[in-house]
Structure formats: C-alpha cells, structure tokens
C-alpha cells in the first residue's frame, strides 16, 4: 500500500460542501444542528481508521448486473461501467479505499422494505456493490444505469439518476458519503438535494461524463467518476508539542 504522510488532516472547506440546513430539502430543517461545529486539530482518533482487505470481497461484489441475478440471468436496463480514481486533495492516490455503492434499478425502484414506488422491482437486481481501489487508486464496477424517481418533498420533485457512494480512506476523518450523477441529465439542476451544494463548480464535480474511450463496443457504455478525499498535511517542520 502507498505510504500515508504524517500530520493532521487539512481542514475541510465547509463552504464547498453543502451546509447542514438547506430548507428546500425539507428533511434537513429538523435534522441540522443549530450550534456551530466545534473544531480541534485531528488526533490519532481521527487520523486512523478501519482499512479493509481484498479478502472481504466476493468475485461478483463489483458486478451489479449479476450479483443478485439468478443463474444465467442479468439485470434489465442500460448496461454501464463506472470507473475512476480515488486521490487525496494533494494528488496522492488512495490505495485500498473501500467504496460501497447503492442505487435504484433502471425504473427508479429501490429494493428496500420501506420503498413503495409503483415502478416494479427487477427480480435480477439487488442494487448494492463494493470495490477496493488498487495501488494507483483506481476502481471499476458494472451495473445498469438507474432511473429517476419521484420523492415526497415538493409536490412534483424527481431525483436525477444517481448512484450513492460510501467511501473509506485511511483515516476516519476522510469518511465520506456522496452521490454520482450522469452527464446531461436535466433533472440535476432542479433537484433540492443537489442544490444543497453552494457552487456550480462543486456540483459539476459530482457529474460523471460519458467516457467513450472506456465504453465496451456492443456491450456497455462507460462513465468516469473521480473522487477526491481529504489529504494530510506534510509535517517537515511541524511542532505540535505546544498545542494539541
């Protein structure tokens, strides 16, 4: 595994991330803290974190077309490959990062006990997958492109097609959950969850472009989604004995 630099994590830019309270996304109103966050320089408790070995992975964990399908069957929908690299904000590859993904099926229906959207379940699609990045931080999985779905927020709100990502880096301070969107989807710019992000530039970093170079002819289109995690500061001159 690539060596991890010493030193505390660079501070998170909370003007770049969505704030806690974003009223057009209604559920955030009562689930957002009203007191400011308390800052402190990271300690070992934040600079360490669980790291998962490839031994946890089954052979089809990164193949959502087949990992829930009956023998000889496959999920229905537009076949895609999603790939990219996980690096830290200083450009270092993050090797051994666990990515967990989940999504609706091609019709926008999630396989979950509490979900009752009238679009049908696909008997051959579960909607979960996971992958661990290689030495260069790269990852890849295949799936079907998820459909948009309606949700009870405004009277006629629809989520853009999206894939959820949960990411573990090397330190618990890097823990991140986000969503990937698809290039050209007109719903992106109408969505209150996307709109919780303050800047257009930050939103665009969540939109995966179509990647014809990695598209498999007569098989599956490809989308590229690169992920950036927080980085650790260099410590050549760091003297932390006087403070925390």
């Amino acid at each position: 595994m690539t060596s991890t630099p010493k030193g505390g994590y660079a501070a998170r830019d909370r003007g770049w991330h969505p704030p806690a309270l974003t009223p057009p996304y209604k559920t955030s109103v009562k689930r957002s803290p009203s007191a400011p966050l308390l800052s402190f320089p990271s300690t070992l408790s934040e600079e360490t974190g669980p790291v998962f070995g490839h031994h946890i992975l089954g052979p089809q964990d990164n193949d959502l077309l087949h990992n829930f399908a009956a023998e000889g069957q496959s999920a229905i929908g537009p076949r895609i490959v999603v790939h990219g690299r996980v690096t830290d904000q200083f450009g270092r590859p993050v090797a051994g990062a666990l990515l967990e993904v989940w999504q609706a099926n091609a019709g926008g229906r999630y396989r979950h006990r509490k979900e009752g959207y009238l679009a049908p379940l696909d008997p051959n699609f579960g909607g979960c997958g996971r992958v661990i990045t290689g030495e260069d931080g790269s990852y890849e999985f295949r799936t079907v492109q998820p459909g948009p779905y309606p949700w009870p927020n405004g009277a006629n709100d629809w989520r853009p097609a999206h894939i959820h990502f949960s990411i573990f880096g090397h330190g618990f301070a890097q823990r991140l959950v986000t969503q990937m969107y698809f290039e050209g989807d007109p719903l992106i710019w109408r969505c209150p969850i996307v709109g919780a992000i303050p800047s257009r530039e930050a939103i665009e970093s969540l939109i995966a472009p179509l990647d014809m170079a990695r598209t498999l002819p007569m098989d599956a289109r490809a989308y590229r989604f690169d992920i950036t995690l927080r980085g650790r500061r260099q410590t050549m001159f760091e003297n932390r004995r006087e403070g925390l």
Partner: protein
Amino acid sequence: MAGPSDETKETPSQTAGPYVHIGCTPNFAGIEGVYPEDLGQRMKIGPVKGEEITIRGAVHEGTGTVLRDAMVEIWQADAGGLYNAPNETRGTADPNFTGWGRSAGDMETGEFTFHTVKPGRVPCPDGRLQAPHVTVWIVARGINIGLHTRLYFADEAAANAEDPILSRIEHRNRIPTLLAKPEGGGVYRFDIHLQGPSETIFFDI
C-alpha cells in the same frame, strides 16, 4: 480543478438518503445472498482483552422524534489504547478487536447497539492523554454531510476532567451531551440529539 496551491477540492458530500442500508447493510435491508454478512456488525472476532461493554442509544431530530433511517458508525481504540489500523505505529492492537462498528438501528425503534470493549486512553500529538472515548459518525436522510461526535464515559470523571478536547469546550453545560451513562451490566446509554435544547456537540475534525 487546480486551486492556487495546486490542491484539488474534496468531493462534496451528499445525504446518504433513506436507503443507505441497501449499500451498507444489505442483509439488514432484506437483500440477502450478495454479501455473507453486513460489514461492521461484529467488532469482536475472537476473545478480546479488556472490559466488554454494550453501547445503546438513538438519534433524535429537532422535534424529539427518533430517526428510524440513520446509520451510525463508531471507531475506537482497543482496551490498551491502540487502534487496529495500518497507520497505528505505537504497537499492535488486539487482533480480535476491529475497533470499527456500524449499526443500522432497529427498523421500528431506531435504537442502535454496539457490542464492544471500553477503550483505553490515547495520547494527543503533544503527548497529553485523552480520556477514553469513541469516535461516532452519523449519516441519514436529511443530513447533508456526516456528523462527527465523540462518546465519553460518565464514570470516567477524573480522566474526563483532564481531557484536552473536552477542555476546549466553552459551553460547559453542553459537555453532558457527550457522556454515555452507565445503566449497569456493562451497558452504556448514548442518545444523540441533532438539534434543540439538548443538542449534541458535533465536531469539525
């Protein structure tokens, strides 16, 4: 996109949404047969050193309603104060204790449960000892960016009094929001309040 100091911006956070369990605890969500077991269910993978404890609690929103769709993760040192992580350089942690747990919460009551050990003390970079604590991270529908807090133990008053992080807290009357209360039999209760008069202290770490 290169910034002035050629650093890239962190990928922005988005809510985990109501169906986080499909991806993170699929067996719990009813998707069986993909993974043999849900990650983070077991923190003890053999006989462990130290005092075995159970942490229980629930996440409450601003109206007092309990969240039934949150996912809570914890990360902590072993009984000797060592982390089971590749970048732990002070020694080797208890190999039978992962230090990391994940709980979806009960689908009806929202209550989360962790079967773990009481952590030992971990030093700050300047060498001062922190009080025993557990790092807690919460995501859910309506939470745009995961919330970090810490669980300390109400029965560790002497260590808590000299803890460097707790010492930084200006509003002393809020410190009890970080204290898990012993309920006997090795059970500690830790309720998390996202908003309101008993709002938990959340950290920017």
